[in-house]
């Protein structure tokens, strides 16, 4: 299935470190995943597990204090593979990729635009940067994209300022700005978290239809499991800077293997459950990624942990068949047992 | 034989010509070459005045004299002023513009002789008409705002004198009663006694006629100004005339007519040499030597000193404490020491208002014992040390060495330090020690000595030094300083009791010429005689006024001096004003390139301060 297609992006052993006075902060400690053209990969995890830093590392827009290690192999439109981490974050090459080949949309649309300039001019900036220098043509292209994302009265809206737009409208505009150059990949960092539910649904539908039309890959970052189910083909679960489980949406939801994933699925409120039932939550909180020792990050909170193994040795990722992978000692042992018994 | 006779005749003829060719030849400054002027001999009067004082070197022409000051009206005028007569440093008067002044037998008519052939700076002849017209048209009608000066007023009747022309170079001044010292009085009060009639005639006539419009039009046309008030214009053009372009003068330097260089309120201005200046040096070179006086407007004294140090400015007065700095500078600067005429250092003078309204205070201030007490209750050694940083000596308000009336006894009068004696004197004067350790009046009223001064002149510090002594002797004092305007208002309203460090201290060149300069009324800055009215004076003050009136009627030099000495004696006996520190001298710091600057002159307004240095004789040698 996916073996025949080449992934549009391959993240290998990505690490992001921040040097602080107290020691080394390692919010991302060896992340691997790939995304294939046209598919949506969901990146799921609690706040503080390193999702945003991972996604920003792809475009090289992390804060100056962060250093990235590993490889991010991107297949550009000429089918050439480029390691994005090797590019100068202020240089021309990565800027040619940003907005044109890989775009990103953010969580809060209200602050994503500069209040000093009109929405139209800010969208148009992307067009002028990457597509054409002709002002008239660029404006037409930008207007077209604005209409495509469903902004009513696009001509009038083009000359209006961000403070004259509602939240939902702004998110549409943000999507327009990200997609106006028809990128091959979109990174959506919690795009609907700040919106109310009805708007959420609209935006998600819009994203899906645009994806179909433009044929682009989406890295969808969220902590909202309901959205994941709707939007994503495959899901990667992240905990404390590492991917602990990857699989299709079905596999993850129906057959979670990693104790953490199990816990996550259990904590989703199910329609039909009784009001009196308490919401399940995983014991403990995500520890701080400071001066971490080797061993599974989930050790403290895991009900299935193996003493002496899980707290000493980093779990390696094993393939459970097809697209389902997991990084867990317990799962590994269970899989070995199966293999033996088969 | 015939040959011999004709030879002798020829020789005689030749010899008779020699005196003609031995006539003095005059030379002029190269500045005038190619300026299209008539030859210098025609520009000078027939008998130019010769500046040949013993200390003068024969100079060379050229160069510019550089000044910096926030000069005001007189700063520019006094150095170059040319009156009919002028003072010498010994206080006597010598001819200047006028050649001679002759009284008649009873001193009621003075005949003034001018120099034939003298010209204004624009080439028009200067004649007696200019002097006579000035008096009759300008002074009598008060066009210059000052009117008839005291020197022209009759000694007894106060009526204005009659001034009449005799011929082009002679005029008379006629009084009803004898005016014994007219030339000296004139040189104190009016000085110049002339104005260019050919320039101002129309304007003055319009003023007299009350035709304001014409007057203003004429006046503004002369100087390129924009006067709107006739009174102010008359004052400015006829009284401060040297400060306006387009007004010819007899001075060695005339304000430039070039735009941008002739506004004395601007940043920079120039006074240019007068082509018709009527003085020469001993070798017949027409003065002045230096071509221009340039002026930079700099308001701050420290800045003026800085400019002196780097050579931008050629001369400046300096305080004693700045002399080491001046001598250390890279530019070669010489220090000249001039005498002063003050009675005691002005900053340490204490003036009592002898005419104060309050009866108790008036009696007290007029009581000699009180004044003596105030004088001896202060330790002058200490005061002089703190006050002047050791530069000045203890002293009293008395004439300086060399001045008329000086005596060692007077200079050291009441300078001992004796608090007990002071207290005894206070009690003798009628004060009674109160329970608060301060003296009160005999009738029980509280006695507080309210001392005032003008702000920012150091008086506040002087008061801090003196007050502890007064307090220790039982005198309660207060001190208030405020700005000049307020103080003057108070003085006018007779609201000042006691003044410390007056702006103009007492003491001047001559008690005969300026009697008001010696008594406390000087602090009020109003003309004394006539304002410190005779009806207000009692005791010795009345005697003083009477002696002065007698002096005005005395012609004989010996008798005059005797009267002056009597007046000075009254001052000595009464010591109406006190001083605690001896007068300091005046120091001029002059760039070495300026030659002929006099050393040891005397600084006084009567001598026109810098005027007595005769800048027309200065020359530049790099």
């Amino acid at each position: 299935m996916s073996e025949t297609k080449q992934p549009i992006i391959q993240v290998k052993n990505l690490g992001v470190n921040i040097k602080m006075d107290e020691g080394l902060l390692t919010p991302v400690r060896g992340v691997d995943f790939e995304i294939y053209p046209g598919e949506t990969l969901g990146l799921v995890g609690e706040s503080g597990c390193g999702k945003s830093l991972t996604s920003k590392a792809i475009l090289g827009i992390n804060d100056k204090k962060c250093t990235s290690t590993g490889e991010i192999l991107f297949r550009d439109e000429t089918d050439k593979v480029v390691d994005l981490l090797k590019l100068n974050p202020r240089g021309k090459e990565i800027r040619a990729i940003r907005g044109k080949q890989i775009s990103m949309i953010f969580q809060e649309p209200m602050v994503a635009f500069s209040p000093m300039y009109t929405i139209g001019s800010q969208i148009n900036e992307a067009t002028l940067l990457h597509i054409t220098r002709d002002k008239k043509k660029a404006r037409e292209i930008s207007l077209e994209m604005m209409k495509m994302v469903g902004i009513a009265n696009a001509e009038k809206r083009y000359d209006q300022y961000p403070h004259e737009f509602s939240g939902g409208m702004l998110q549409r505009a943000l999507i327009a700005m990200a997609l106006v150059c028809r990128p091959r990949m979109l990174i959506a960092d919690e795009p609907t978290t700040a919106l109310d539910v009805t708007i959420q649904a609209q935006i998600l539908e819009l994203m899906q239809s645009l994806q179909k039309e433009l044929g682009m890959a989406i890295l969808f970052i969220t902590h909202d499991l309901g959205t994941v189910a709707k939007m994503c083909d495959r899901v990667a679960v992240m905990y404390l800077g590492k991917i602990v489980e990857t699989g299709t949406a079905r596999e993850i939801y129906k057959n979670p293997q990693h104790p953490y994933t199990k816990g996550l699925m259990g904590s989703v409120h199910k329609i039909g459950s009784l009001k009196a039932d308490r919401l399940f939550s995983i014991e403990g909180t995500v520890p701080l990624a400071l001066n971490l020792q080797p061993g599974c990050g989930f050790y403290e909170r895991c009900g299935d942990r193996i003493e002496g193994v899980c707290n000493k040795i980093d779990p390696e990722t094993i393939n459970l068949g097809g697209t389902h992978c997991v990084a867990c000692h317990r799962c590994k042992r269970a899989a070995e047992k199966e293999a033996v018994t088969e | 034989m015939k040959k011999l006779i004709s030879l002798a005749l020829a020789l005689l003829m030749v010899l008779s010509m020699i005196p003609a060719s031995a006539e003095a030849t005059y030379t002029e400054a190269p500045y005038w070459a190619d300026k299209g002027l008539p030859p210098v001999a025609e520009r000078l009067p027939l008998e130019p005045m010769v500046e040949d004082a013993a200390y003068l070197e024969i100079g060379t022409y050229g160069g510019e004299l550089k000044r910096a000051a926030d000069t005001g009206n007189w700063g520019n005028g006094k150095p170059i002023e040319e009156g009919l007569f002028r003072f010498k440093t010994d206080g006597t008067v010598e001819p200047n513009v006028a050649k001679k002044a002759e009284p008649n037998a009873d001193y009621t008519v003075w005949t003034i002789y001018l120099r034939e052939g003298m010209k204004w700076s624009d080439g028009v002849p200067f004649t007696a008409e200019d002097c006579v017209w000035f008096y009759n048209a300008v002074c009598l009608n008060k066009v210059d705002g000052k009117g008839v000066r005291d020197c022209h007023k009759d000694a007894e009747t106060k009526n204005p004198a009659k001034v009449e022309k005799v011929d082009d170079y002679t005029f008379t001044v006629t009084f009803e009663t004898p005016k014994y010292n007219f030339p000296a009085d004139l040189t104190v009060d009016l000085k110049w006694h002339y104005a260019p009639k050919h320039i101002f005639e129309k304007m003055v006539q319009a003023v007299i006629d009350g035709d304001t419009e014409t007057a203003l039009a004429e006046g503004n046309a002369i100087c390129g100004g924009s006067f709107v008030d006739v009174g102010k214009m008359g004052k400015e053009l006829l009284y401060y005339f040297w400060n306006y372009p387009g007004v010819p003068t007899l001075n060695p330097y005339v304000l430039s007519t070039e735009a941008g260089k002739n506004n004395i309120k601007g940043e920079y201005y120039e006074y240019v040499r007068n082509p018709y200046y009527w003085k020469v040096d001993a070798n017949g070179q027409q003065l002045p030597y230096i071509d221009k006086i340039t002026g930079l407007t700099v308001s701050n004294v420290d800045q003026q000193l800085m400019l002196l140090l780097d050579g931008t400015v050629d001369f400046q007065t300096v305080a004693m404490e700045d002399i080491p700095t001046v001598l250390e500078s890279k530019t070669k600067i010489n220090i000249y020491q001039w005498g002063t005429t003050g009675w005691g250092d002005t900053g340490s003078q204490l003036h009592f208002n002898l005419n104060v309204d309050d009866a108790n205070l008036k009696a007290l201030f007029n009581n000699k014992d009180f004044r003596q007490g105030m004088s001896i209750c202060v330790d002058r050694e200490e005061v002089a040390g703190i006050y002047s940083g050791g530069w000045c000596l203890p002293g009293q308000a008395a004439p300086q060495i060399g001045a008329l009336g000086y005596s060692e006894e007077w200079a050291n009068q009441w300078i001992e330090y004796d608090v007990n004696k002071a207290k005894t004197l206070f009690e003798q004067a009628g004060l009674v020690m109160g329970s608060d350790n301060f003296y009160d009046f005999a009738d029980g009223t509280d006695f507080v000595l309210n001392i005032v001064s003008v702000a920012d002149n150091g008086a506040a510090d002087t008061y801090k030094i003196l007050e502890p002594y007064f307090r220790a002797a039982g005198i309660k004092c207060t001190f208030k300083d405020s700005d000049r305007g307020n103080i003057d208002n108070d003085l006018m309203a007779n609201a000042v009791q006691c003044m410390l460090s007056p702006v103009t201290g007492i003491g001047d060149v001559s008690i005969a010429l300026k009697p008001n300069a010696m008594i406390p009324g000087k602090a009020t800055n109003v003309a004394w005689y006539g304002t410190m009215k005779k009806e207000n004076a009692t005791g010795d003050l009345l005697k003083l006024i009477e002696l002065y009136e007698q002096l005005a009627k005395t012609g004989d030099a010996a008798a005059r001096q005797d009267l002056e000495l009597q007046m000075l004696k009254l001052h000595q006996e009464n010591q109406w004003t006190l001083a605690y520190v001896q007068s300091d001298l005046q120091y001029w710091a002059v760039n070495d390139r300026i030659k002929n600057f006099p050393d040891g002159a005397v600084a006084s307004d009567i001598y026109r301060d810098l005027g007595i240095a005769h800048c027309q004789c200065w020359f530049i040698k790099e």
Partner: protein
Amino acid sequence: MLSYIGKRILMFIPTLIIISFLIFFIIQLPPGDYVTSYVAAMAAEGEIFTAEQIADLRVQFGLDDPWFIQYFNWVKGIVTEGDFGYSFEYGRDVWDVIMDRLYLTLAVSFIILIFQYGVSLPIGIYCANHQYSAGDYVLSFFGFIGTATPNFLLAIIIMYYIYVKTGNVYLGLFSTEMLQNGMRWEYVPEFLGRCAIPLIVIGTSGTCGIIRTVRAQMLDEQARQYTLCARAKGCSEWTITYKYCLRAALNPVVSGLAGSLRTIFSGSTVSAIVMNLAIQGPVLLAALKSQDMYLAGTIVLIQAVLVLVGTLLSDIALAWLDPRIRFAERS
């Protein structure tokens, strides 16, 4: 927008009336008047006035009327003839006296203003972009020194060192030669050198405030989400700094310009006195000290007008700069 400006300008009139009244009232408040200080100045030079002469002078100068009549005449003159009165001290029309120094004052002030902002803005941006670097500390340090030192002290120190090194005191903007012969090409280097001292002295006093403000604002703006967005779009760092961050950071700087108009007109007074610059500030001081009231009143009135106009202009500039303010005005 136009109606807004119109309304503001209309508000000038009552404001100016009140200000002119207050100015006049305060100037004539100290006891005495111009004649008092004139008489005192003359006395210092040795010329004595009698009481009647002084009374005459008062009539001559029109100072014998009660002050509200003088005020009324003054205002009448301004409104009907554009005549701002007569300067007793200078003996000329007030307007002439002001015009005399106006060009030089404007020139000096503009140069200083340009220097201030021209130096502060780039330094502020640099410091923000290189926060906590050595350059940040060094530049901020110099900014602080410039502001912490009193201007006149700095002027004296600089002049002292120049004197010690060269033996020349460069007092004032023009040397005697320049004043005598007018400006010539060979004088330009010296003139620039002389300008440098007031430039450094007066210019550095304001730079620190601007540097720190710009730096703080820039750091604020750089942390905002929209810079991240712009970067993700592919904008260059240059665009992000200058197009986006700077425009937002300029808000307080533009507000600060409101006062500059007035400062341009009168120049700095204390520094001008210390360095003997022939600009407007010392004129006002002298006029106030001698109670030359029409001159003083007119200068202060002009300053008031300039403050009003400056505030209006800076408000307009702010509205242009930041659309959110426009929107707020409209609603």
